[in-house]
């Protein structure tokens, strides 16, 4: 059973400190460096940029995202702009 969970925890460990895109159910994207996340999928991001309809709308130094709003977390190879 633990074998099945391994890819998940590996992914989560790998993306710490990496640039990620977090999409919320509302469709808003947050790009930033993943500081940490917990079992509720609450997320702490650094150097956060908020994209609404693909347009940069706001920047936050740090941001806490409440897990229930999260649709997905996507690891980025490289930061654009």
């Amino acid at each position, binding site marked *: 059973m633990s074998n099945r969970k391994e890819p998940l925890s590996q992914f989560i460990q790998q993306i710490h400190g990496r640039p990620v895109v977090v999409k*919320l159910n*509302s469709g808003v994207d*947050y790009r930033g460096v993943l*500081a*940490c*996340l*917990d079992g509720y999928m*609450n*997320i*702490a991001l650094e150097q*956060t940029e908020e994209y609404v309809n693909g347009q940069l709308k706001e920047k*936050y*130094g*740090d*941001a*806490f*995202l*409440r897990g*229930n*709003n999260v649709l997905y977390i996507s690891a980025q190879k490289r930061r654009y702009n």
Partner: protein
Amino acid sequence: MEESEQVPAVTVKEPLDLVRLSLDEKIYVKMRNERELKGRLHAYDQHLNMVLGDAEEIVTTIEIDEETYEEVYKKTKRNIPMLFVRGDGVILVSPPIRAGV
């Protein structure tokens, strides 16, 4: 595999630490239904229920201009001395921009 525990002085080990570090600071909260709050964080819990002092609520509504049919964003602000926020409406919490900018 056991990882040796590192204990840096101030650390964000779990996302809620970010909120804990913002206690007694001015924070920005993005809420559902196009609502925003700014206020001093007096208390919070794991649900993100929060008590904000000196809070300002900003509500954004879209109105359609009757002649040009343009969408006009209208921001309505109001001040609340002390506010209890139910956590389930919270989307984002951002600590204050650090002083010394």
